[in-house]
């Protein structure tokens, strides 16, 4: 199994929020809470998106990143389905399965996306035209050798291949496109495929809304009302 660490170069937070908003809305509509913020979000229809974007842009970078980590976690099932469907539409993609996706803020305040529990069906992968073309003259040799190799050896070959710079730009481009199809609009700075030996508990269960964000959102909302409406 592998874990794919995707360092994000540019994150189009507004577009990502817009594309994920229907999913977030669905989650909000399903809430039974009678609290003021929930009732307010449920009631706001067409107005909500532009108002929310305005409010979110009043958060600082750290707060905004924390909010997006939460939103990705909230929508991870749908994002996972969308990515899996997109992968299934390509020959090479059909050989890839993964268990979870999570967005993290790193110590420098940047955003990193992780795809965990990646499993490769090598037989399927080597049937892909793109992979065969990429391997060129070595394709036949690799196909012949693959059944003789252990899973560990196969994984190592894949890791080495992915790390080769000649494949990087194509992978990055494909990655950008796949994520866009799933509603996450960004430009990947670089990615690193590593062996995945850890459990990722934050990939399961109900995500917890960061407590510190509650006050930040109230402040941003009040700032919006004070400066734009009152």
């Amino acid at each position, binding site marked *: 199994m592998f874990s794919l660490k995707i360092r994000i170069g540019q994150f189009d937070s507004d577009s990502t929020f817009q594309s994920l908003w229907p999913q977030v809305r669905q989650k909000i509509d399903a809430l039974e809470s009678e609290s003021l913020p929930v009732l307010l979000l449920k009631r706001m229809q067409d107005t909500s998106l532009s108002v929310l974007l305005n409010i979110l842009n009043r958060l600082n970078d750290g707060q905004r990143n924390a909010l997006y980590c939460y939103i990705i976690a909230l929508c991870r099932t749908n994002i996972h389905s969308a990515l899996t469907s997109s992968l299934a539409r390509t020959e090479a993609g059909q050989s890839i399965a993964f268990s979870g996706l999570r967005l993290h803020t790193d110590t420098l305040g940047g955003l990193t996306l992780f795809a965990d529990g990646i499993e490769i069906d090598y037989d399927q992968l080597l049937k892909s035209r793109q992979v065969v073309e990429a391997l060129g003259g070595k394709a036949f040799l690799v196909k012949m050798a693959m059944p003789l190799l252990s899973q560990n050896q196969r994984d190592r070959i894949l890791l080495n291949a992915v790390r080769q710079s000649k494949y990087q730009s194509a992978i990055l481009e494909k990655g950008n496109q796949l994520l866009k199809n799933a509603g996450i609009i960004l430009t990947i700075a670089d990615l690193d495929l590593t062996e995945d030996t850890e459990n990722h508990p934050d990939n399961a269960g109900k995500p917890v809304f960061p407590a510190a964000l509650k006050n930040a959102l109230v402040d941003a909302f009040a700032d919006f009302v004070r400066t734009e*409406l009152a």
Partner: protein
Amino acid sequence: MICAKLSISSLDCKASLQGLLPVLAKKKGDPDSDQPLYRFLGRLGGSAGNVLPELLDAVPSSALEELLLGVVAAYEGPLVRQINSALAAHEISKSFSAERLLMERDTTTGNYHLMLGGININYGTLLDNEIVMKKAESLIDGIFDRYSDSTAGQLFSLVARKALQKTANVGKIANWLIHNPMDRRCVQLLEMETVKKPLLQQAERALHQTGVCVTLEDAVFSFDQAAQPETHLPENRCIFDSAWLSLESKRAVVDAFVTYIEKHLKEAQ
């Protein structure tokens, strides 16, 4: 201590909320609160004065009623302090200070009333008033009559009546009599129309000064036996998280707020 149930003949919920809300926002609004509504109000600062009255225009009357009862509950502490200071500015009522306030609606009649509880009375100040004093005198006369069926009682009554002829002593004796049976005797005094009427007028004026637009119809005084019932909301609770507002009313308030946002966004564009 006594409590007073003030029957309300007319109540302007919207005007009352318009009077109370800006003060509530100022008093309860805390930019550092962890309670979302109070933090929001605190962060709005002076702008709350522009937002809240306009918001009330869009709230239906059924929700306004519930909102007012909730606001009075949420605002009990500061409201009671304001009422007490308003009462202190008037004759008779200046001897009263309440500890609790609750606005309720009688579910059978649909009428509103205000319960002022834990009323402490400064008898010295109360008996300084001429109307109260005259009534106290007649009350004392009534008490003396009870003693007339025994020789000792007749003697006591005679001495006391003589003493009462000297006006300077009336206050002392009345004070003593009222303090002995304590507040129960005072309740009788307050129930006398000539004392109750000005007191009602002063209470109504005090409420108006606080922002509650009511007309008071009657007052029923009783000995307060309640052991500090929790009528108010704890400081950190918001009326939105309480049972004071029904879900329909919460939705109505939220509707009004969204209407407000949409209207002003359109204007801004």
